């Protein structure tokens, strides 16, 4: 298979397609995007054919400045004060190819430091050997500072060579590359908690919605391999644990790139061969990177919907601080009325007074078939979901505090998450508004780093929320602004019944939330 020829042929057609804001916003058409680099707060990625994208926030993208050296599937890494970009090109037809390095102090064309320098060839394939020296991927080992390059595309092996982190060039020009994997392309390396991971794209590209692209991986205790998948199959014999394949309205994920945002929050960039909502165009995407049992998992960006916010720390749910009404209305003992009762009824654990009194009103307890009546008999008919319009009649009209409570399916415990119009975003997703489901009552940060629910959404920064998955699959919820707070704050469960904003602590579960479909 000659995948890269297909890549090249497809590029002009892909770029001519219109964009529709569904996943990332703005202009996101790209194929074979590099790892996303951050320079002076802006996000940059470079693709095949000279295509480049830039973003101020990681959510809304626009066309960037083409690299001085065009080619196939570049990769970029920031070391010290320089950005090193590796760009491959076939030299006289595949699999004869070279990977060239260029470098600059800034990726911003407006900067005086935007001066590219040629670094020469760092890897090659001669057209006969078992390699196709394209699709470079670079990693700086956080343990020992050594720098590594993987490259290759289907023909023969994915290969590994060492680079010099001081220059970005080949450390020993004539050393023999190590073979790591076969039957894949777009290799990239990352290190996590004692393991090196080789991520590569399997399947075919450049066929729109018929592309079988999928990202797979293996891991090794040594950067030089062997890289085995979860079944113990070596990637050099075709192994590879799936990270992500086609899903939803997207077909053919490829070209993994790690985007580490700090505080333990990791994401990865990729392209989809076909975004069906954008007419099947190849587009950039950014997704959370989760971890389970030592293996990376593709997470999900937040989707619009109605949810319960359950604290991973307390197990209680965020709710508007109003008096709850049991779903179906209050029922007294035996089905009769006994006046208002509190939510969360449960047994005590202290001394129990002697039992006194007669049988409950409404006849003896009924635990048998439904039919209504008794303590356990129910009403005899399905109980519909709570109507927020009805139960909110007595809620205060103005600001209402927020608290935590045992989740009882009540209206004040359900929240709707929806993208905030013109609210901007962050890598992978837009800012969201969070409202009590069925109302316009809006969760907001206060100037003293607490929380309040306002009567209506106005679009102010303190009403905009960054909601992103953490490595364990829980969610972090961060306001765009919290008054004069100098550091980002996150929604935090404090105690069982209280919620506040506090500095995110990756080692704590105070700011971890299970956002669950109610």
């Amino acid at each position, binding site marked *: 298979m000659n995948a890269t020829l297909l890549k090249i042929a497809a590029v002009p057609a892909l770029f001519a397609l219109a964009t529709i804001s569904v996943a990332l916003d703005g202009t996101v058409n790209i194929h074979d995007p590099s790892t996303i680099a951050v320079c002076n707060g802006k996000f940059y990625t470079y693709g095949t054919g000279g295509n480049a994208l830039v973003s101020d926030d990681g959510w809304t993208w626009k066309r960037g400045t083409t690299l001085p050296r065009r080619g196939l599937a570049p990769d970029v890494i920031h070391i010290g004060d320089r950005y090193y970009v590796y760009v491959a090109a076939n030299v006289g037809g595949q699999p004869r190819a070279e990977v060239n390095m260029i470098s600059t102090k800034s990726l911003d064309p407006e900067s005086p430091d935007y001066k590219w320098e040629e670094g020469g060839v760092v890897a090659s394939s001669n057209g006969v050997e078992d390699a196709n020296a394209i699709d470079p991927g670079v990693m700086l080992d956080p343990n020992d500072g050594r720098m590594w390059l993987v490259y290759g595309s289907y023909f023969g092996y994915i290969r590994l060579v060492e680079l010099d982190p001081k220059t970005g060039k080949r450390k020993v020009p004539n050393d023999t590359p190590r073979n790591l994997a076969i039957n894949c392309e777009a290799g990239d390396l990352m290190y996590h908690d004692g393991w090196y991971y080789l991520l590569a794209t399997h399947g075919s590209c450049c066929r729109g919605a018929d592309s079988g692209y999928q990202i797979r991986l293996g891991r090794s205790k040594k950067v030089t391999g062997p890289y085995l998948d979860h079944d113990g199959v070596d990637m050099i014999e075709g192994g590879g644990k799936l990270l992500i394949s086609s899903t939803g309205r997207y077909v053919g994920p490829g070209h993994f790139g790690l985007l580490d945002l700090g505080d333990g929050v990791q994401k990865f960039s990729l392209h989809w061969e076909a975004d069906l909502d954008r007419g099947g165009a190849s587009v950039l995407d950014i997704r959370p990177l989760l971890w389970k049992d030592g293996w990376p998992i593709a997470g999900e960006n937040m989707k619009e919907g109605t949810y319960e916010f359950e604290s991973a720390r307390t197990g209680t749910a965020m709710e508007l601080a109003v008096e709850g009404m049991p779903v179906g209305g209050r029922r007294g003992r035996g089905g009769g009325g006994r006046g208002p*009762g509190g939510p*969360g009824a449960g047994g005590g654990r202290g001394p129990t*007074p002697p039992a006194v009194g007669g049988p409950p009103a409404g006849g003896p307890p009924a635990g048998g078939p439904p039919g209504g009546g008794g*303590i356990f008999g129910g009403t005899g008919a399905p109980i519909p979901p709570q109507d927020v319009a009805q139960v909110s009649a007595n809620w205060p009209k103005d600001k209402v505090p927020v608290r935590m409570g045992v989740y009882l399916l009540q209206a004040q415990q359900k929240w709707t998450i929806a993208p905030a119009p013109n609210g901007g975003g962050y890598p992978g997703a837009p800012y969201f508004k969070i409202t009590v489901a069925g109302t316009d009552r809006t969760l907001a940060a206060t100037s003293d780093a607490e929380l309040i629910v306002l009567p209506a959404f106005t679009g102010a920064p303190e009403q905009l929320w960054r909601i992103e998955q953490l490595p364990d699959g829980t969610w972090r919820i961060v306001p765009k602004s919290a008054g004069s707070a100098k550091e980002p704050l996150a929604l935090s469960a404090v*105690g069982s019944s*209280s919620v506040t904003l506090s500095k995110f602590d990756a080692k704590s579960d105070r700011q971890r939330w299970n956002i669950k479909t109610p």
Partner: protein
Amino acid sequence: MKLTTPAVLFCALTAAYAQPPASNLPPIPAQVPATTLAAPATPSKTPDAEGFIPRWMILEPIPANGLTDAIVQTAVKKEYFPNQFTVIPKNGDKVTVGDKELTWHAEDTKLYNVNLYHFAKNYGKPTSDVLFWVVTIVNMPQEMHNVRLAIGSNAASVWWVNGEEVIGIYGDRQTVIDDGVSKRLTLKKGANIIRAAIVNAGGATDFCARFLDENDKPLKGYTITLSNGSGK
């Protein structure tokens, strides 16, 4: 288990039908004496190892019914006796509520929590459908910023710090450490008054309280006194 819970009521019914009224039952010797409270014997106390406040002035219970937000708020805002929200009572002070004379008692707890069931039984008072007023004074060596009052109570309770209402938790609930937590507070140097009303429907009733620092760690390094600074 509490009789206020229908499921428990069901379990208790069979026995209830076969037994004479509670007041006619013969006494049962205690297997373990309920001695969690004692009169203060020192001028002041410090928080325990986990930061819980062990010394409180407690008023004998006042009748009260209901645990929902609105009912409890109404109950605790009703004036039962003069200067209810400002008084610093002394041990043995008496107030008249309705046709009953009630007494304030200084108490030290041996545990992290204050067992109001023990308190009421010790003075021959009811434990069900009642409201307890409690007061204590925390003396800070310097002004403290970004601290939180953190409480748990069986059942509902409302709390004030230096006259400001800072916590309300409602419903038929058990005492859970740090169940209700205030927003960030500033405690002044010297005496700061904590006041609470705990409402119980039936069965066990108790509370616990401590301060948390800006890192949510228990606050220590201060003293606790009652009305006259002597602990009595």
